[in-house]
């Protein structure tokens, strides 16, 4: 692995602010970003990334072969990864916990994606707007799979009142607040770029110029959140801790092979890999808390936020980049 990439990633302001957040908690500083400010940043980032993505898609054109193939592959990955994860997790956990954790790892983390974009940017490697489409499309299928696993793998354990109806499964998968905001902003970005280039310009100071700074601010908070998960991580046990690191790497490996077969450029390939490797802490916990209360929320939230997220943004992204550099030739196959 190129140590260089790692160092360059670690000295990015985003990652430095993340560290600062971690240190603040470890040193018991009384620094605090009170609710609902993190929610403000999180809503902003979803809205802005969606809007930017919509513009990007409009520019790259939606109906070209590579775009459609990539998006389909993304959806397939987010259907397969939770199945794989479920099989592994069942070695140690009951159906409810396995399904919930598997869904989290099948779904994606928008902020990890954003960090990967920033990393590409700092490396002057270009990527395409339609990858944000992949981001938006990969959130829901994993939730769907997770809930279907609960519905069919655990029918006898559950009392009648807990029967999962297909309607509510679909509702949780597709109408979750963060999924909805991302998708909706994407569509608005697309429509605006199509019909109203002036309005795109007027939005840019908000959605584009401000983006990096808010990202840093949010990562400061994420650092604090991650560090606060550490105590409950210990309780989670070594199996889950290993899972939270190895599963992303494994998913990244599959991802890079798929990216190669799709003949993606290095930039898009990295984003694809990062989508496979990242785990959800917004949409999935919301859905699981509502429909699978038997699953311990600390399992899926401590691992995704306390371990997988930090791992990905600090070490994962540069590791995946060097993986992409190795496996994917710079000129298309």
């Amino acid at each position, binding site marked *: 692995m190129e140590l260089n990439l790692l160092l360059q990633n670690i000295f990015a302001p985003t990652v430095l602010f993340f560290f600062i957040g971690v240190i603040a908690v470890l040193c018991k500083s009384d620094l605090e970003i009170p609710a609902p400010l993190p929610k403000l940043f999180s809503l902003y980032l979803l809205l802005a990334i969606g809007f930017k993505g919509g513009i990007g898609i409009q520019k790259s054109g939606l109906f070209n072969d590579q775009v459609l193939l990539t998006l389909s592959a993304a959806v397939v990955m987010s259907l397969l990864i939770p199945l794989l994860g479920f099989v592994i997790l069942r070695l140690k956990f009951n159906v409810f916990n396995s399904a919930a954790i598997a869904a989290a790892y099948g779904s994606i983390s928008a902020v990890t994606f954003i960090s990967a974009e920033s990393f590409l940017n700092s490396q002057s490697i270009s990527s395409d707007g339609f990858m944000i489409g992949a981001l938006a499309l990969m959130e829901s299928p994993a939730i769907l799979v997770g809930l279907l696993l609960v519905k069919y793998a655990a029918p006898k354990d559950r009392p009648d009142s807990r029967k999962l109806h297909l309607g509510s499964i679909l509702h949780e998968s597709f109408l979750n607040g963060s999924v909805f905001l991302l998708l909706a902003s994407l569509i608005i970005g697309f429509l605006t770029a199509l019909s109203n280039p002036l309005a795109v310009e007027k939005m840019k100071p908000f959605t584009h110029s401000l983006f990096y700074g808010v990202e840093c601010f949010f990562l400061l908070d994420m650092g604090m959140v991650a560090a606060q998960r550490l105590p*409950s991580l210990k309780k989670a046990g070594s199996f889950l801790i290993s899972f939270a690191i190895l599963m992303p790497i494994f998913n990244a490996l599959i991802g890079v092979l798929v990216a190669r077969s799709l003949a993606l450029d290095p930039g898009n390939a990295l984003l694809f890999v990062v989508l496979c490797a990242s785990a959800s802490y917004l949409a999935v916990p919301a859905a699981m808390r*509502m429909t699978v209360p038997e699953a311990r929320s600390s399992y899926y939230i401590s691992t995704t936020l306390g371990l997988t997220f930090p791992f990905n943004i600090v070490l994962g992204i540069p590791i995946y980049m060097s993986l992409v550099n190795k496996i994917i030739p710079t000129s298309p196959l």
Partner: protein
Amino acid sequence: MKRLDLIFSERELQAILNTLEKANVPGYTVMKHATGRGPERVVTEDMEFTGLGANAHVIVFCEQEIIEKMREDIRSVLSYYGGVAYISEATPL
């Protein structure tokens, strides 16, 4: 008159409010953004932005008979999702 205190995850709020309405409570008060710890779950402020949300604290002042009417429904929501419910005495000012 009785005072009923319900504390549970914000995500169950709608289900609980529906139960209250069904029993025709004269009114209720909701305080969101509460955190805490129960027998097994910890709810912290720093997690509020994630999909898990915080807790809600609902206060209902009503007659004993209304409480009887909704007892089973509330219990079934709380046993499903978690949360606590306590009754105490209260006299209107």
